[in-house]
């Protein structure tokens, strides 16, 4: 594949991308103006179209392939959400436009806040965190603000189960907390005895994903919430796996004080390339004063922004304006499109699909990580037997799946389960697609026994073959180098 820069020829241009008129950048102070022209490729319009069309065809995406990437909820992104979020009134709205010119947009945002409040069982919601990680940061910052406001400053620890996403301990540390790990029992639920040992006057809170990353619902959540609250700590809900319980069980009813919701997962906005995301936060009554700003308030028949002026105890702003407006709009349309009943169907079909796949794989001889447990919207199989006896490991299976036209499931996460695949089909897929994926895994299992090198050398049918990921990490090949930014000027 030739890079677009390599196709560049001096003087060639695409008038479609050229500015409509000459722009004089007189309002930019002299010291900030670049001294040389930007190194943009000089190519024709057709070259641009072909280049990016070809590039998109080399990708696996939810529009082209089954994408059962565990913990990521790669469900279908309905076209209706795109087209409505791209109405000219939304696309053309400037983020600094006055409130009286933004009533339609603000009404949608307010409705989304209300919908998320209701479906999660929280008292109030702020939409502005622009990713799950920002939502986590905001959530833990609010826990900190709550304890600080009470003068309860000796609370220095956040508890995190060993099955957690790595972002949880990272968020806690970012907010100045020490992290204490709580082990998981053999059945996949949290070790409540270990939790009791860990709780104390130093406990600021606990961060939980329920269902957990192990693909099981922690059945003792009521008891856990009681224990943590009795110790004076707060409960944080990581919304990564909300899809499994949407419209069925509400984190607020489980006893959580703060939650972030990944709209790009559960509410079906496009993601997969690192963004754009949306990680709204919801809180119980005691954390409400600390929510980030801006939020949207309905004042009679008008909508208006709530800012630092209205909410003096806020932890502040997390992004310019109100987060990724286009993503929030898509999530709003999705929520209105499927409605309350549709949300329950999301939970039902995503868990049905996962349990169907788990059972069929078990029947075919694959080993479930938690065989005695019902799967949630995702499940884990472990290929440790195959790795030990055949010398074919999970990464080999994952690469071979690409040859069969499937994006691989999540590999080697969670870290607690050796040689694991975390498989999340979502509710979008039909049975034929699930069956085809299962047949492919079963075929690969046969190949691993009869011709292990075939699997170990995969992928064979793609433009890029097996990458040497060790060499790639040891001998970094980066275009950027220190000082490169200055040289370009």
């Amino acid at each position: 594949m030739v890079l677009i820069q390599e196709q560049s020829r001096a003087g060639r241009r695409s008038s479609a991308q050229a500015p409509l008129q000459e722009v004089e950048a007189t309002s930019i102070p002299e010291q900030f103006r670049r001294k040389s022209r930007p190194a943009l490729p000089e190519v024709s319009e057709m070259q641009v179209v072909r280049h990016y069309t070809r590039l998109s065809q080399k990708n696996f995406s939810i529009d082209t392939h089954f994408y059962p990437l565990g913990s990521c909820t790669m469900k279908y992104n309905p076209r209706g959400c795109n087209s409505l979020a791209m109405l000219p009134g939304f696309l053309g709205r400037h983020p600094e436009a006055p409130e009286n010119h933004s009533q339609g947009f603000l009404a949608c945002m307010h409705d989304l806040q209300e919908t998320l409040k209701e479906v999660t069982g929280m008292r109030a919601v702020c939409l502005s965190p622009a990713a799950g990680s920002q939502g986590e940061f905001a959530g833990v910052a609010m826990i900190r603000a709550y304890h600080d406001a009470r003068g309860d400053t000796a609370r220095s620890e956040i508890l995190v189960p060993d099955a957690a996403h790595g972002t949880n301990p990272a968020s806690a540390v970012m907010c100045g907390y020490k992290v204490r790990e709580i082990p998981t029992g053999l059945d996949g639920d949290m070790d409540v005895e270990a939790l009791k040992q860990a709780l104390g006057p130093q406990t600021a809170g606990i961060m939980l994903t329920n269902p957990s990353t192990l693909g099981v619902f922690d059945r003792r959540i009521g008891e856990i919430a009681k224990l943590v609250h009795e110790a004076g700590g707060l409960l944080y809900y990581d919304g990564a796996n909300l899809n499994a319980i949407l419209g069925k069980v509400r984190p607020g009813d489980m006893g959580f004080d703060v939650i972030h919701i990944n709209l790009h997962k559960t509410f079906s906005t496009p993601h997969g390339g690192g963004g754009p995301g949306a990680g709204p936060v919801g809180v119980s009554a005691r954390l409400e004063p600390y929510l980030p700003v801006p939020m949207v308030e309905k004042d009679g028949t008008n909508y208006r922004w709530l800012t630092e002026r209205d909410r003096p105890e806020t932890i502040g702003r997390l992004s310019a304006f109100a987060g990724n407006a286009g993503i929030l709009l898509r999530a709003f349309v999705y929520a209105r499109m499927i409605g309350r009943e549709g949300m329950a169907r999301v939970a039902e079909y995503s868990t049905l699909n996962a349990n169907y796949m788990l059972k069929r794989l078990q029947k075919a001889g694959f080993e479930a990580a938690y065989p005695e447990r019902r799967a949630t919207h995702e499940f884990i199989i472990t290929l440790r037997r195959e790795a030990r006896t055949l010398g074919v490991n999970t990464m080999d299976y994952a690469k071979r799946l690409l040859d069969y036209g499937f994006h691989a499931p999540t590999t080697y996460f969670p870290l607690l389960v050796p040689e694991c695949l975390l498989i999340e089909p979502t509710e979008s897929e039909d049975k034929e697609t699930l069956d085809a994926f299962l047949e492919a895994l079963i075929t690969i299992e046969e190949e691993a026994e009869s011709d292990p090198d075939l699997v170990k050398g995969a992928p064979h049918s793609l433009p890029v073959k097996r990458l040497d990921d060790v060499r790639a990490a040891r001998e970094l090949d980066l275009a950027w180098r220190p000082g490169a930014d200055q040289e370009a000027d």
Partner: protein
Amino acid sequence: MSDFPTELKYAKTHEWARDEGDGTITVGITDHAQDQLGDLVFVDLPEEGDSVEAGEDCAVVESVKAASDIYSPASGEIIAVNSVLGESPELVNESAFGDGWLFKVKMSNPAELDNLLDANGYQEVAASEEH
């Protein structure tokens, strides 16, 4: 099958410590640990002169699969680090108990070594994690 040399002491967190008999220990990660991690691509070592507590994280090893904190098996002062690993992290995979050592600690409380596991005890820990 991984090696479990009997002359070494082990931490549950997969470090080994060799008592050099002069109040210092040499520390590394076990053969079992490197096997589980896979090919290492980066090792972040402490600075000579740093003081460490037993159980304190003081180094990081990163493989293509995961990054793992390394905890000092004993309290004291870091008196040497295996700086060759900066260029050649693969030495940990090739020789976890030899050329792949990470750092040396001058112990402030040698009795802490008694809290560590022997080869049999660690072998049980390693085996239990397989399940």
